[in-house]
Structures are given as C-alpha cells and as structure tokens.
C-alpha cells in the first residue's frame, strides 16, 4: 500500500492538500536571510523585489481565473474572503435594501456570516437544493425580490462535490440587479473558470485546497461601478485599504505558483480523478443499503460522499484507520451533529451521521483507492455485525 503521510492513507484532500514541492521551493526562496524576504511596502530594493513576487502571483492567479491581476485582494483564506465579500457588500448596500439570498447547503463560512447579518437586521432567504444537491434556477428566481442586494451561491459543495451552474445563476442575479458572490474554495484550480465570461461579482478562494500553503486566500472583486466593499480590517493602507496588513509574500507567491501549476495540469488531474472516483464507487456500490449523496454527473470528480444507514459514523471513521477521510465538513468535525448539508438533501439523521466523504487528490494512487475499498467494506461489515437488531 502506497500512502501519503508515511503510515496513513490520506483521502481527505477536500479538507486540505499537501503543498506541491515546487510551491514549497518558491516559498523557501522568499524567507531566509539570503532570500527576498523584505516587506513589499518598503521603499528600498529589498521591498521592491518582494513586491515583484506579489505582482507575479497576482498575474498567475488572474490567468488561472481568466481575470486581471488587479481584481484580486489577498486575504488569510476563504473564510475571511467570504466574510469580506458578504459583510462588506451587504453593509455597503444597506441603504438600498436588506434582502439577501443564499443556500442551506453552503459552508459554515457562508451560513454563519449570513446569520451574523440577520442579527444586524438583514433578511435572508435560505434556498434548498434538490435531493441531488443541485439548486433549481426557478427556486432562485422565485426568491429574488426588488430589494435583493446580494446572492451567495457556492460553486462546488465541500461535502458532496456537487456543482452549481454559476453562469446561469449570475445572469439571473444581474437581471434582478443583485450582486453574486461565489464561494469557490473547492473549485478554484480544480474546475475551469473564466471570470471574464461569468456574471460573478465576488469570488472567494483559499490556497490550501489546491496544493498551496495554508493561511492565504483571495477575493476576486469585479470591476463594476456599483460594487464597493466596506473593509473589515483597518490599518496600514495596504491593498487600497480593503485589506491592510503586511503582505505575506511567501504565501502569496506560493498561492500564485500553485495556481500556475493547477492551470497546467487541470485537465489531466480531472481525468485521473474521474477514473479513481469511478473505481472507488464501483468497488463499494454493491454494498447493501449504500447511498451516494450528491450526483455523480454534476459534481467535481475528486469527491465521493456515501452513506449506509445502519452504521454509526464516528465508529466507522475509527474502523477505517489508517484511512483518513471525513464525515461531514472538516471544519465542523469537532461537533458531532449530523451534517446539515446532508440533512438538507433529505437524509435521515442516522444516514447523515454515517456518511463518509472520500476526497481524492493529485497524489492519490490506484493502490490507495483499492485499499480504501477493502477497508470500507470491511469496516461496514464489522460494525453491522456488532450492531444490535433494532428489535432485539
């Protein structure tokens, strides 16, 4: 059995990825005393050299997204990008209307932001996708009102991999004069995206989902006269005051390099992921009572979410060791409530609780998939045997 981190078999790439060795090297060169470690705001050669790395990174990320470098704001991750986009836009447009729209199946870094805005007096419509996770355009259209200011719909769902039709959703929003924010943490660098052709106003991303470093994200802000954001942080004036603080050049350069690599190998990545995912599903789909959560035809191929109703989730996770996979979202794993995303798709508490998210990455091998198949089958069988009949 080949594996990622020494003694483990890592299939949790949707939670976070290792950093690509080429990216690591880029970052390394910008940190040590012999490197370009200067503060990019400084008025001397060390600062200007650093700054050039920031510019290159913005160009690389812009190229990946089909937009220009000056539309990108660096943040600490998708959580901050989501907050800046949603709170920043909503507060700035407060006087125009207080209605906002999002989905029940968004990441907590979106839902919790909308809850905070509700406490500030905004009104939020929470849309429910179909049982396969896909949002019906009619549902969105029906929710739009004259005073709707902002719609936030994620691109790829972090639990199911299901994607939304951002192009059509954007048109629908713009037709009604609302802004569209997209949480693309799970799709940037993984699925083709051409922002110049999309009616997307704000898009959040984070480097550690695409083989870049943790602690760096970006927010795309379209060039539109009526698009302004209130900043969340105040300080030294960096990034046109939208997001101040010393720019973390090694992280930014790492993000940029990861974006360039992603642009290069996206198509071959996708083909490989699809092959491995299909192999995984073929290897377990005959288990009695197994259910695929989501929709294979409409999802990012690096992710497979399955559940069996009669097995307890936490025990299943432990029984899968040394396989590293997720139940629910990695970001709220510490609370053991059944996934609200799966509940919104109509799963019972028990089925949601026993769901497993396999997520496949660039380093994943066929052997690892075969190991996962064997381990999953075995664990389910053992736990089922151990489970008392409901009517004992």
């Amino acid at each position, binding site marked *: 059995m080949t594996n990622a981190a020494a003694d483990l078999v890592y299939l949790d790439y949707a939670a976070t990825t290792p950093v690509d060795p080429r990216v690591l090297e880029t970052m390394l060169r910008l940190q040590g005393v012999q490197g370009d470690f200067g503060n990019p705001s400084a008025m001397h050669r060390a600062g200007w050299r650093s700054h050039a790395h920031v510019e290159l990174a913005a160009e690389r990320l812009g190229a990946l997204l089909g937009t220009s470098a000056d539309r990108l704001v660096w943040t600490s991750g998708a959580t901050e990008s989501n907050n800046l986009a949603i709170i920043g836009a909503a507060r700035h447009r407060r006087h125009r209307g207080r209605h906002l729209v999002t989905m029940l199946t968004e990441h907590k870094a979106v839902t919790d932001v909308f809850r905070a805005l509700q406490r500030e007096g905004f009104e939020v419509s929470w849309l429910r996708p179909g049982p396969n996770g896909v949002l019906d355009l009619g549902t969105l259209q029906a929710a739009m009102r004259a005073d709707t200011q902002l719609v936030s719909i994620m691109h790829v769902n972090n639990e199911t991999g299901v994607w939304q039709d951002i192009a059509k959703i954007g048109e629908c929003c713009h037709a009604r004069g609302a802004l569209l924010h997209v949480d693309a943490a799970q799709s940037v660098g993984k699925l083709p995206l051409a922002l110049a052709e999309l009616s997307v106003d704000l898009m959040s991303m984070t480097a550690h989902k695409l083989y870049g470093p943790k602690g760096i994200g970006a927010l795309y802000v379209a060039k539109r006269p009526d698009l302004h954001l209130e900043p969340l942080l105040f300080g030294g004036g960096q990034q046109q005051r939208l997001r101040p603080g010393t720019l973390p050049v090694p992280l930014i350069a790492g993000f940029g390099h990861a974006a360039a690599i992603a642009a290069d190998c996206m198509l071959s990545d996708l083909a490989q992921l699809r092959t491995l995912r299909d192999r995984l599903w073929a290897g377990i789909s005959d288990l009695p009572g197994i259910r695929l959560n989501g929709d294979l035809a409409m999802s990012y191929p690096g992710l497979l979410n399955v559940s069996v109703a*009669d097995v*307890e989730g*936490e*025990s299943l996770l*432990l*029984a899968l060791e040394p396989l590293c996979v997720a139940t629910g979202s990695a970001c709220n*794993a*510490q609370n*053991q409530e059944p996934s609200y995303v799966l509940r919104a798709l109509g799963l019972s*508490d028990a089925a949601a609780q026993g769901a497993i998210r396999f997520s496949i990455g660039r380093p994943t091998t066929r052997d690892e998939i075969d190991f996962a198949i064997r381990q999953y089958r075995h664990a389910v069988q053992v736990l089922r*045997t*151990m*489970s*008392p009949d*409901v009517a*004992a």
Partner: protein
Amino acid sequence: MSRDPYSERVRALFSSPLHAGSMSTPYRVLVDDQGIRIELSATLDGDVIQRLRFRAWGCPHVVAAAEWICTQLEGESAARLQDFAITELMQSLAVPVEKSGRILVVEDAVRALGAAIKESSTIAGQAEQD
C-alpha cells in the same frame, strides 16, 4: 481544533472486540437511549457470570466501554451488575467528559441486565419456595 480522543486502550478494545456478539439466553437486555443502542447478554454459572456478550450501535468509546465491561465482569458475581458504576471505566479509558452522557447509557444497560438477572432468580427462588 481537535486532539486524538482515543487512548491506546480504547483503540485496542475497539479494534478487537472479543466479546462482541449475542447469545440466546434468558439474560438479555437492550437499552436504546440518546441515539445509542446497547445489547448485553449473559450466561450464568450459579451466581457467577460465565459469559457476557455485547452488541452496540454508538461511538468508539461506547463500543470500547462495552468490551471493557464484558472483560471485567466475566467471572464476577452477578450481584455486582446492579450497582455497577462507570467511574473506573471513565478513568481507565480516558473518556472525554462530554461523552459521559453516552457512557451512562452503558451503565444503564449493565444495571438493567443485573436487574433482569435478579428478577428472574427471584422468580426462580420464589418458584422453588412454592
């Protein structure tokens, strides 16, 4: 943020649950509470627990606790079941406090089994007296 919640002891008990199973015996109880289900079944040799088996639907701590209990109580007097308390178990398995509610369901199961045994032996005793 989370740290590994499973002690080596819990891992060992969970991954080799030697007492997992079910026996057809009159001494069998099922407790279903807080989303956790525990079945215990015992065979007796006089007053002594000869064999104790469990089936469980719950988190690894619940499974490990059930296995631990079976290991501890086989060979003991059945009378011990009724005032069984989880204090030692909680410590010995380093169960996180927030899970004590679940482990109390295991305690309930053990006591229920004790009560069941006592009741049937009382009936049996009564039958003998009659």
